[in-house]
């Protein structure tokens, strides 16, 4: 029903004499009404190349609808997504030409819908481990959302997206499904730090970053070999201690934000243990045991 109203508006606003001449835009409308979207697309593409039709906002609005509807039938293919891009381009052009603001609401509503699909694609790509396109979709989503509302605050969305991105990369890292663990680790750290910069009180990001550092250290220790020269063992130990020290402030922050959470108490106990500060490790271990009623 929501879709029919703008189409009706479009039909009513097409001048009678223009419809009578059966110009490409009118023919496109006919094709659209008879649900022949491919034909409608062909005709509307001809219409926008026409000097007169192409200068009318309504032609571009209609093109936006046609491309959007084609996209809706095939949302997951590259071809479908190209149609979405064309739809967006059409609505933006319509807004440029719509000096009276006649189609502004319709265009903005369609762009809102399309920006939501961009965000969904970003999330879907992250879920599937396609990180590069995920970031690209997310940036496109932001660009479009900012186009609609220049003052829109993305903090919440950025936190959500970057946290999800980092957590997916962490899974790969933990499962050792990477050829370049160092670069992956840097990416994880960068993302969590960006989240913390956006919201220093984000418990999960603080906790996850601490755990990432800690687990890195544990992984190195676990793979230490006594065949290595003594000097190297000391260097490895120093490297591990830096990782544990890096973990500490973030775990302390997570603990400060949620003092009654067993995971952070366990985290602090583990980090201090790794740092060979047994007194503090036992302090948090006792707190954990008290919390768990042991």
């Amino acid at each position: 029903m929501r879709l029919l109203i703008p189409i009706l508006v479009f039909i009513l606003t097409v001048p009678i004499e223009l419809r009578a001449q059966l110009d490409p835009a009118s023919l496109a409308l006919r094709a659209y009404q008879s649900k022949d979207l491919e034909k409608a697309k062909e005709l509307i593409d001809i219409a926008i190349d026409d000097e007169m039709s192409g200068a009318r906002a309504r032609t571009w609005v209609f093109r936006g609808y046609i491309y959007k509807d084609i996209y809706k039938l095939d949302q997951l293919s590259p071809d479908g997504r190209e149609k979405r891009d064309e739809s967006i381009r059409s609505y933006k052009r319509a807004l440029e030409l719509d000096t009276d603001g006649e189609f502004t609401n319709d265009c903005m509503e369609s762009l809102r819908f399309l920006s939501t699909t961009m965000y969904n694609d970003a999330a879907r790509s992250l879920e599937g481990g396609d990180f590069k396109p995920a970031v690209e979709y997310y940036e496109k989503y932001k660009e479009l959302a900012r186009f609609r509302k220049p003052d829109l605050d993305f903090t919440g969305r950025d936190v959500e997206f970057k946290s999800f991105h980092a957590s997916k990369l962490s899974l790969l890292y933990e499962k050792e499904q990477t050829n370049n663990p160092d670069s992956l680790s840097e990416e994880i750290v960068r993302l969590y730090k960006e989240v913390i910069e956006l919201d220093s009180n984000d418990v999960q990001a603080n906790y996850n970053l601490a755990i990432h550092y800690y687990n890195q250290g544990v992984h190195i220790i676990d793979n230490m070999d006594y065949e290595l020269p003594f000097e190297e063992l000391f260097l490895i130990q120093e490297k591990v201690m830096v990782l544990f020290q890096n973990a500490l402030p973030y775990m302390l922050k997570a603990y400060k934000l949620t003092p009654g959470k067993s995971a952070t108490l366990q985290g602090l106990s583990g980090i201090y243990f790794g740092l060979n500060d047994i007194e503090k490790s036992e302090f948090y271990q006792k707190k954990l045991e008290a919390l768990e009623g042991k």
Partner: protein
Amino acid sequence: MNTSVNTRAKMKGIFMLKFAQSTEWPAEYKQGEFVIAVINDDDLAKTLEMTTKTKGVNSQPVKVKRYTSSAEVEKCHVMYIGGKSAGEIEPFAKKANNYNTLIITETPGVIDRTSCINFVVSGSLIKYEMNTKLMKDQGLVVSNSLEKLALKVIK
């Protein structure tokens, strides 16, 4: 959070095996199993067992033994004695003195007369101090590199 690894035990275990590699025992100790006795630290014993599962020390297969009383102490190459006081350590060390045993501890104040190598924590790092006189008394020859990296050496 990876809780599957006892980081301290793993680190100490690696150091202990390195100490063992850098020490020379009398000829009669160079055959058969390389015995490491562990007292009061089951995580360390487990770590040593895991780490030496596929390779030994100085071409000898490693056997890890756990002792709970000094009466159980037999001939061994290395003995780690966990304990917070000299009183806990000395009965085991005394028995180990009957053999050419490298005694390792992690207790303040025992390096002067009981322990060959004592773990210490310095700036979050596990380091060690040595008593080379005691090692010589135990019939052990220690490599220079081990001595060089020690935090303190008693000669």
